[in-house]
C-alpha cells in the first residue's frame, strides 16, 4: 500500500512538473511585455523597462527563468536587485507584475472564497445527487426515476453561468428574496457567510448533483443486475439488506471515484463560477490576471488547480484500495 502510494505520488509529481514546464514555456515565451505591466498606469521610458527586464531576468533564457522559479518554490528568493528587491519567502511562486506582492499572498486571500464555494456545493451535490440517483435506480421506472432522469438531463445541459445569472436576476434583483452573493469570512460573521454563499452553493450544488444523480443511477442499476445481488436475494435477505449492504456497498467505490475527481476539478471551473457570482476567489483572480497579462498569477493558479486534480487522483486511488479488497496496491 505504502509503496503504491509512493509510486503514485511520484508519477503525480512528474505530471505536475510537466504541467509547470508547459505552462511556463507557453506563457513566458509567448507573452507580450511584462515589464510594461510593472510600470502601471504611468508609462515608463525605455531605460526603465530595460532596467526592469534586467533585474527580473525577463530576457534571460527561458530555462534559467524556469530554474529560478522552481528553486524559489523550495528555497524562496529575492526578486529584483538593490533597493527594488522584493523578498519572496519559500514557497515562492513569484510576485505580481502589477503590485509586486508575492503571488502566494494574493492566492491566500482568494483561497478561502474558492474553498467555501467548493466545499459547500460539494456537500449539496453529493447528498442530493447520490441519494436521488440511488433512489431512482431502486424504483426504476417510477415517478422519482422519471424526475431524476429529467433532472440529470436538464442539469447536464444547463450552463452554470446562465443558471447563476438567471437565479440572481429573478431571486436577488426582481423578487428580492435572496441575499446577493458575497463573501465574508465565516470567522467574522458566520451567518453572513452562510447567506452570502448560499446562492453559489445552491446553483453549483444542484448542477453538479445532476452529474452525480446520473452517474449513481447508472452505477446502481448496473450493480443491481450483478450476480452477487441475485445471490443475496437467494439467501432470503430483505430488500433493504440487499440494497444497502450488498448493492450500495458495491457501488460505493465508483461513486467515491467520481466524487474525488469532481472535487479535484472544482478549482479549474472556479473561473466561471466566480465570474458568474462576482466572488473574489482564485478563479476570478485568474480571469483578472489573464486580462492584465499578469503571468506569475496565471502560472500559479494553473499550477494550483492542476495540483488539486493530481492530489485527488492519488486520494481516489488510495480510497479505492481501502474500499475494494480486490485492489492490491503493490
Amino acid at each position, binding site marked *: 500500500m505504502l509503496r503504491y502510494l509512493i509510486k503514485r505520488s511520484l508519477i503525480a509529481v512528474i*505530471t505536475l512538473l510537466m504541467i509547470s514546464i508547459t505552462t511556463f514555456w507557453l506563457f513566458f515565451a*509567448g507573452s507580450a511585455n511584462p515589464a510594461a505591466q510593472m510600470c502601471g498606469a504611468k508609462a515608463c521610458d525605455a531605460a526603465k523597462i530595460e532596467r526592469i527586464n534586467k533585474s527580473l531576468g525577463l530576457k534571460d533564457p527561458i530555462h534559467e527563468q524556469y530554474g529560478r522559479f522552481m528553486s524559489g518554490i523550495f528555497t524562496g528568493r529575492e526578486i529584483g536587485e538593490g533597493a527594488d528587491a522584493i523578498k519572496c519567502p519559500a514557497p515562492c511562486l513569484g510576485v505580481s507584475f502589477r503590485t509586486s506582492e508575492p503571488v502566494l499572498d494574493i492566492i491566500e486571500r482568494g483561497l478561502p472564497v474558492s474553498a467555501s464555494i467548493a466545499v459547500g456545493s460539494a456537500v449539496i451535490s453529493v447528498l442530493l445527487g447520490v441519494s436521488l440517483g440511488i433512489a431512482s435506480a431502486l424504483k426504476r421506472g417510477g415517478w422519482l426515476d422519471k424526475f431524476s432522469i429529467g433532472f440529470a438531463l436538464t442539469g447536464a445541459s444547463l450552463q452554470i453561468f446562465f443558471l447563476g445569472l438567471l437565479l440572481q436576476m429573478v431571486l436577488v434583483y426582481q423578487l428580492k428574496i435572496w441575499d446577493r452573493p458575497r463573501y465574508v469570512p465565516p470567522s467574522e460573521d458566520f451567518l453572513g457567510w452562510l447567506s452570502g454563499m448560499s446562492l453559489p452553493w445552491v446553483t453549483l450544488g444542484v448542477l453538479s448533483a445532476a452529474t452525480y444523480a446520473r452517474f449513481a443511477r447508472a452505477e446502481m442499476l448496473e450493480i443491481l443486475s450483478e450476480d452477487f445481488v441475485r445471490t443475496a436475494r437467494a439467501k432470503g435477505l430483505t430488500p433493504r439488506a440487499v440494497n444497502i449492504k450488498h448493492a450500495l456497498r458495491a457501488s460505493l467505490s465508483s461513486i467515491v471515484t467520481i466524487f474525488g475527481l469532481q472535487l479535484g*476539478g472544482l478549482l479549474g471551473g472556479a473561473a466561471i463560477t466566480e465570474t458568474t457570482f462576482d466572488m473574489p476567489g482564485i478563479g476570478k483572480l485568474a480571469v483578472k490576471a*489573464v486580462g492584465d497579462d499578469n503571468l506569475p498569477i496565471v502560472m500559479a*493558479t494553473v499550477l494550483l488547480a492542476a495540483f488539486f486534480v493530481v492530489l485527488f487522483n492519488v486520494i481516489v486511488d488510495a480510497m479505492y484500495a481501502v474500499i475494494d479488497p480486490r485492489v492490491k496496491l503493490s
Partner: protein
Amino acid sequence: MSDTTSSGQGTALEPGTAPEPKAENKAALVGRSPGQLAWMRFKRDRVGVVSMWISVTFLIVAIAAPLIEMVYGQSATTLNSNLLNDDSRPLGVLGGITFSTDNPSNNIHILGVEPRTGRDIFMQLVYGARTSLGIAVTASLISLAIGVVMGLVAAYRGGWVDSFINWFTDFMLAFPFVLFAFAAIPIVNTWLADDKGEVSPFSRVITIIVVFSVFGWMGTARLVRGQVLSLREREYIEAARAAGAGTGHILFRQLLPNLWAPILVTLSLGVPATVTGEAALSFLNIGVTEPTPDWGRMVNESVAWYQVEPMYMLIPGVALFLLVLSFNLFGDALRDALDPKSTK
C-alpha cells in the same frame, strides 16, 4: 420413482394455442443488420426522434445562416441606434420585439434588438449558432480522430507505447482545462497576429478549435483502448492475423468497423460538451470577438443590462440550453439504441 417426472404427462398442456408469428415477420427479423436494428429501436424512442429533429434544425440554421439572413431581411451586424432610447435601451416591449416592419429599421425583430447597438438578436442567434456549431463539430471531429488513433495505437501496440499514452492521457486530464485554455488562447492569438498586431476572426476560431481538439480526445482514447483490448482477443482478429494481415489492415478493416457505435455516441455527445465549453470561454470574454456573433459572449454582455433588460440574457441563455439539451438527448437516445443493454 418414475412417477416423479411424469406429473406432466397427464396434463400434457402444450402451448399450441399461441398465435404463430407471420412468416414475413420472421424473415424481416433475421435479415436485419445491427445498424438497421439500432435504427428500428431509435425510431421507437420518441424523445430521441424529436431531439434529433431539433438538433438537425439547429445544424440547418447554422449552415443556412446567409439564406436566413436573405429571407429575414437584416444582417446580424446592422446597427440600429434609431431603435434605442436615450439610455441605449431598446424601444418597445420585451427588448424591442416586433413582428411589424413599421419601425425605423423597416424590418421585423422577432426576438428584439440588443441594447447599446440595436442589432437584431434573432440574427445574432442565427450566426451565433454557426459559430458555436462550427467550432463544436470541427473540434469534436478532430479530437475524435486524435482519440481513436491514440486508443488504437495504445491498445494495439501495448508495452511501453501503451504505458506512455496512458500516462499522457492522465497528464492531459490533469490540466485544469478552463483555466489553461483561458490563459493559453490569448497567447496563441498573439502568435497568430499579423504585422499590425491584429488577429483575424478566422484565426481566433482556429485557435479555439485547436484548444478544444487538444483537450478533447482523452475520453475517446480511453474508450477506444478499452474496446480494442476486449475485441482483440476475438477469433476473427486472430484469424486475420494468422492469415497474415498487416497491422494497418487489422486496425482499420477489422477493429474500426466494430467501434463505430461507441464512436458515434462519443461524437454526438462531444458536440454539446464543446458547445458548452466554447460558450463558457466566451462568457469569460476569451475566444471569438466582435463582430463574430457568439452566444456565450451575448450572455456575458447581457450581465451589464440584466437588471433592466432580462430578455437580452434570457434569449441566448435559453437558446444555448435548448441546443445542448437536444444534442444530449439525441446522443443518449443513440446510445440506448446502439447498446440496448446500457442503463441510461
